[in-house]
């Protein structure tokens, strides 16, 4: 079914180019970081990290274009099924997933490790957007706000139990941002936040695992155990700090090239940038992110309906917080938690999810001029 109100010239090339620039940027950093990896395949091998990333990016781009050509409103129809599938996958990973660095996050599908929490973030955005857009008129009711909170809380607890504190925070932030964007009352939000703050000490005492508590303690004092768990955080700061304003030059970072970093192609890829390309490199990267986020917000504002607006808003919050938490962890601003840097970190699940997000944003943009009656999609 071709939607005749689609206008291809409303496709946003700036959004797409900013994202692709980030992917290319990431590719360079992954290349540099993988030079020192023992037993790494050669660069012309398809299993080399850069080649894999390029393959995922190409696949992502095709998927994005495919999704852009589809009507994003179809997602609303699929949302219930997607939500149930995502919850099931998160539960499954908790029971049967592969553990890395003390936390279960992966399942393997056809030989490829898949991180369901990345995909679940997008599913939550779609689910909340659908739920809130359907109750546009009742958003002032506390019941609606609480129900939406419950929808977000289920996956939050599942990733929290992995344990993946970072993703849990992102789920909650997505919920908060989307409920706020949907027009929820400040009094309701303030009440819920107040209740959460009261609960924090209990959660910390009862639910936060030793693993998370230790990471928070080490974030506060990375020098305390320079060769233990604080190693990563400290080495990342040393790497970034030693990069200075101009950096040591791509492939010339000692911290990176002498393997002082772990996961330097994924969660710690920003450290490679900080060390080798310095503050200047970081500012270029941030500029690309800000352009991308600005254009994504533009899609939210131009959306012809609340559903699209909320999805776009959720995607902005998602990318913004992933970026902030990842760089925050790399720079020692936040406790260590494994969150990939959007578009830059090596990782198929993350990259494909992000390109799907881009496709949805383009779909929203290309369908913004459609005149419809509200009953067409409400209800």
């Amino acid at each position: 079914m071709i939607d005749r109100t689609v206008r291809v010239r409303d496709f946003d090339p700036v959004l797409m180019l900013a994202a692709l620039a980030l992917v290319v940027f990431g590719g360079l950093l992954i290349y540099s970081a993988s030079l020192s990896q023992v037993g790494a395949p050669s660069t012309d091998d398809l299993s080399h990290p850069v080649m894999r990333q390029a393959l995922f990016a190409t696949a992502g781009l095709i998927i994005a274009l495919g999704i852009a050509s589809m009507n994003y409103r179809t997602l609303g129809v699929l949302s219930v099924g997607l939500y149930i599938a995502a919850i099931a996958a998160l539960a499954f990973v908790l029971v049967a997933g592969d553990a890395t660095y003390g936390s279960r996050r992966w399942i393997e599908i056809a030989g490829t490790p898949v991180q369901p929490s990345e995909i679940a973030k997008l599913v939550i955005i779609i689910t909340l957007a659908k739920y809130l857009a359907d109750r546009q008129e009742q958003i002032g009711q506390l019941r609606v706000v609480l129900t939406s909170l419950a929808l977000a809380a289920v996956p939050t607890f599942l990733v929290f139990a992995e344990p993946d504190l970072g993703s849990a925070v992102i789920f909650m932030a997505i919920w908060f941002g989307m409920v706020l964007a949907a027009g929820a009352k400040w009094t309701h939000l303030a009440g819920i936040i107040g209740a959460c703050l009261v609960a924090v000490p209990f959660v910390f005492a009862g639910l936060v695992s030793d693993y998370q508590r230790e990471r928070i303690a080490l974030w506060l004092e990375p020098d305390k155990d320079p060769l233990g768990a604080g190693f990563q955080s400290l080495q990342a700061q040393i790497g970034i700090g030693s990069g200075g304003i101009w950096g040591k030059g791509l492939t010339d970072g000692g911290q990176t090239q002498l393997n002082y970093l772990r996961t330097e192609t994924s969660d710690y890829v920003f450290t490679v940038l900080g060390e080798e390309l310095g503050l200047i490199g970081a500012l270029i990267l941030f500029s690309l992110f800000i352009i991308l986020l600005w254009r994504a917000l533009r899609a939210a504002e131009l959306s012809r309906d609340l559903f699209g607006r909320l999805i776009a808003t959720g995607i902005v919050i998602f990318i913004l917080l992933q970026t902030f938490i990842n760089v925050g962890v790399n720079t020692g601003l936040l406790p260590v938690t494994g969150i990939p840097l959007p578009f830059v970190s090596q990782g198929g699940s993350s990259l494909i999810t992000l390109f799907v997000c881009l496709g949805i944003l383009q779909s929203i943009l290309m369908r913004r001029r459609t005149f419809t009656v509200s009953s067409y999609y409400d209800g």
Partner: protein
Amino acid sequence: MQLTPPGRRRWRSRPKKAQPAEVVRNRSILLRALIVVLFSALVLQLVRLQVFQHDEFDARAESNRLRTVPELPSRGLVYDRNGEQLVENLPIFSAAVVPADVPEDQFLTVVAGLAEITGEDAREVALDIERAVKSDDPYTPVVIKQDIDDETAFILRERQPDLPGAQVLVESIRSYTHGALVSHFLGFVGRIDEEEYADLKSRGYGLNDKLGKAGVEYVYEAMLRGTPGYRQVEIDASGEEVNQVAAVEPKAAGNLVLTLDVDLQRQVERYLREGMGSSLNAAAIVMDVSTGGILSMVSLPTYDNNILTDPVDDEKLQPLYDDPAKPMVNHAISEVHPPGSTFKQVTGTAALQEGVANPSTTITSHGLITVEDEYNPDRTWVMRDWAALGTMDFYRGLAMSSDVYFYYLSGGYYESGAEVFHGLGVDRLSAYARDYGLGSPTGIDLPGEAAGLVPDEEWKLDTFGETGVWTLGDTYNFGIGQGFLTVTPLQLVRVTAAIANGGDLLVPHVLKDVVDEENNVIRAYEREVEREIGISDANLAIMQEALRQAAVYGPANTGASQYVSIAAKTGTAEFGQPLADGTYPNSHGWYTAYAPFEDPEIAVVVFLEQGVGATNAGPVAKRIFDYYFSRGNLVEGDQ
């Protein structure tokens, strides 16, 4: 709504229902603000790290990348004056681990593997590694077990790939070829302790280093250690060396040539051991009177320094600590005793120099003198001589070691309150004693030297308070080397050497030369005179003659040798509780002498914890002189 630019309104699909949409749009401004705030926070943090803390982190990155591996030169060797080697460096294998190279997730594997291979307790191994991690030097290997056998070393090398951070260290240990015979000269080396490490870290000492803990190993540590070099190597995070960046060759240590004559030492040790009788301990020193060099120094009982040198043999160590004779104490320099009549060398020269006596000063000993108590005229004290020696001039007084003669010289003599002989008095006596170097360490290049005590009025008041008023009896006792005065054998031999060499109070020493590997002298020991003792040549000549006569017809003739003419003085210092008849059952035996009389070469002191100077200490000295002046003419075993 009023915030919306009117021009945009035409794009709104449902102007009538715009209210919630406007709320949404207004709230999207919040999101833009959040983007700005969060990225600003990141930029601020980056500026902090990359601009303000750049230098600090750059230094840390550099030290991450570059590891300095110290290269120690082989520790210097030690020879006796004739080139006989006294110490060897032997290689041993040790199991070690570099804490920084143990991956966090393999810590337990490495600990368990090392514990299994070395047979050490796993908990201890883990604690050792953790201690090193906390010491801010996690790159220095921590020794888990020293002196592992070849097979264990081989197994550890084999399994190294599975135990990241584990290493076989090739270390060097000291082996003292002459053991107990020269242990008081050489001392020993041991592993650096925490306190020493804190002090010496800045001078390039590492956690695993060894250093001298006693003897010349301690005193000449800097020379024996040499100048450590280092290699600066680039390493990756697992501790593998990637390449060498810079290297500074270690500068070879110096080898020490001691003044010690190990052949002489062997004989002196034997004579002293055979002559010490029931003494708990004994000491003998042979010193070069013109240089102050120590040719031999024996302290008995002694200890085998191979037990103490790292790795320490604890089982054999405990008996050394428990032995009441204190074998690890160098009795020649570290313990003080009253010198007895040997001190008459000092009293005599002081009296000559001060004009209190001259060679023809005649005093008669009836075997005792009586002294009126200064504070209670009804009471008189009896001061005994060792015999009623009759009328004596200065030479005979000293040669026969008359106590009465020296009571007169030191305290004078009073009859019915009137002075009939003017003595030195305590002030002058103590001043001369100090001029002879008594009461303070000699400055020998060995650790642990005692100062001894030269008493005076002020000292006695300070020490005993009201009851400590100095009496004439104190002066008398002082004059014959009894009472409060204490000396070390080394201080005493230095007194005799100063008299023999014409008045130079020498700083005794055990180092002769520092030589390089080709035996070229890098640094020669220079004769050091602490001071002139302040006795005129004429007066020294009188004392020399008196000492000569003592060795000919006085009690000191027990030390006379058929091979050489000697000048000598005995001493028998009573100690402990007197018997009912006023005599003492316990006495230290002293003998101090120099030879040849005509052209002095060496001075000798013999100290026996239990004994009489003439009967016990003298014969030991005789055998030393016999050996020293006849060797080369004699076949070993003739003594």
